[in-house]
């Protein structure tokens, strides 16, 4: 954000009737700044890059190999024939990357707030919602890059989707990534300190991941527990995984698309409201901010 002079630094609402409105170019420069920063941060943190890749690959190489026989095979849409368990869980692992990465990107918001970097961002003369959306887009871009690296490794491991599926899956990944990053951002607005975030990770990431069709088809969950099945149906991550799964085979799962789009809108609106200084959520945190 150093590309913008801090002309509006003294106010939290810099864009007003008196100042000259920014052109599209200025907005793009701002977006680029945030994107580049997020990208650099990701690339510079090699451990983060490796761990984000190793996590789904562990599931693919070890977990899937172990459970291949246990979970058996079945034909459910969008599959037209029998698939290996590795193939089944791949869309779920893409979702897992988006989930972890989205949360991690939001974690960085908490970090930024604690370290003071966020102030640099927030004193930018652009509207708050725009900054948040830019931050979100940056997070999603990094997530999608990770997904494609994972898919490339999976391809060499013999886990393949139809070639055209790798193109179709991009919008599904984007929308799902937006939803999960939005959720993470909304949650991060309610976290007072960095240390609290690990708790949310355990209470949000893992329940969302396991109560979804990422690892097992929902009909199997329904057989063992109708209640758990209902919980899975109430989980937005369920629809993100199915949206990605169908997209790999060039199909649109309309229910998933609607649910994911609606959740994206809700989480995004929630995050924008939560980060709006006039709404009070930020003020509450500022009370404890000094103790961090």
């Amino acid at each position, binding site marked *: 954000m150093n590309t913008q002079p801090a002309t509006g630094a003294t106010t939290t609402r810099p864009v007003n009737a008196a100042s000259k409105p920014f052109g599209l170019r200025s907005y793009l420069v701002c977006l680029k700044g945030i994107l580049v920063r997020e990208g650099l941060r990701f690339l510079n943190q090699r451990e983060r890059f490796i761990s984000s890749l190793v996590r789904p690959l562990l599931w693919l190489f070890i977990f899937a*190999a172990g459970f*291949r*026989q246990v979970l058996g*095979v079945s*034909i459910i849409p969008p599959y*037209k*024939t*029998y*698939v*290996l368990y590795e193939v089944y869980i791949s869309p779920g692992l893409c979702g897992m990357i988006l989930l972890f990465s989205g949360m991690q990107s939001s974690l960085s918001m908490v970090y930024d707030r604690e370290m003071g970097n966020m102030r640099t961002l927030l004193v930018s003369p652009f509207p708050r919602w725009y900054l948040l959306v830019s931050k979100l887009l940056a997070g999603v871009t990094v997530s999608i890059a990770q997904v494609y690296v994972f898919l490339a490794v999976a391809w060499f491991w013999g886990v393949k989707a*139809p*070639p*055209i599926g*790798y*193109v179709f899956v991009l919008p599904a990944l984007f929308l799902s990534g937006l939803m999960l990053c939005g959720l993470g951002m909304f949650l991060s607005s309610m976290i007072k300190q960095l240390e609290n975030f690990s708790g949310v990770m355990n209470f949000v990431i893992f329940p969302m991941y396991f109560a979804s069709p990422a690892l097992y088809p929902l009909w199997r969950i329904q057989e063992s527990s109708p209640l758990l099945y209902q919980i899975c149906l109430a989980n937005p991550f369920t629809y993100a995984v199915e949206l990605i799964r169908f997209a790999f085979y060039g199909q649109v799962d309309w229910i998933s698309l609607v649910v994911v789009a609606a959740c994206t809108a809700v989480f995004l609106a929630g995050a924008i409201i939560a980060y709006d200084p006039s709404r009070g959520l930020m003020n509450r945190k500022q009370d404890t901010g000094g103790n961090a």
Partner: protein
Amino acid sequence: MTGKGRFLAAGVMAASMAGLLPMPAFAYKVYVSNEKDNTVSVVDSTTMEVVNTIQVGQRPRGITISHDGKFIYLCASDDDTIEIIDTATDQIVGSLPSGPDPELFVLSPDGKRLYVANEDDNLVTVIDLETKKVIAEVPVGVEPEGMGVSPDGSVMVNTSETTNMAHFIDTETHEISDNVLVDSRPRFAEFTPDGSQVWVSAEIGGTVSVIDNASREVIHKITFEIPGLRSESIQPVGVRITADGTKAYVALGPANRVAVVDTKTYEVLKYILVGQRVWQLAFTPDQKTVISTNGVSNDITFIDVATDEPVQSVTVGALPWGVVVSPN
């Protein structure tokens, strides 16, 4: 690259990727014998849907088609007969005397004779299709099953499940000329298109023996290994070799896989996941698709020959056993 150029490149890439998707082929009728519910399912190869179900005799197993595609011949094992189905009407129009418990058979290259393995009677029965009469019975080993005939029609091969042998029978004299010992429970015999080799699958032995037709000796044994599967569950049954003689497809029974084997190096190129207990295979006449019958999961799987990828599985009757594709 300009924005426009980049857009164009992306479009070209997407189009070329779209070209990799399997194209719909000419519509054939696929006939599947369902051992348990005494029916034959007729499946359209383009829509991949069951279009008809024919009630047939008890325990239908071996199934083949006349070279002109007009008649299906079907072993109704428990009725001790071979039924004839007219492919134009999908109705049973007659039967052939087969001897007791016919299981598998093969049509001679000239289309005039049917060589039938009679499982309970240790016989191979030769039927003349014009007169619909038995013209010879050849005593073979215990529990005969697999039947193959050389492309020139001079030799037929029968495998006997309990004797563990491939019997080479002269089609003129109807006498056994050679017996070749193979691995346990040989199920199927398939000649290569040039007639130089016979591939015999052994269900319990878990191997496919490649027999040289000139020397009548086993020149290679193909073994199969699938990570995560016990060797006992790999049971080769049906074998089909492409018309150009480059690839062989081997159904591996309860391994739920079809192995693709390079016929030159005898190496397994790929294991294709299909339904449960895959039994027999058949090519479409254009050789673009191979179809497997999956007995326990009650379905058949269409496999693309160019990519060796499974395309779609279609539910048919109970315990699908044999499959044949009509050229019409």
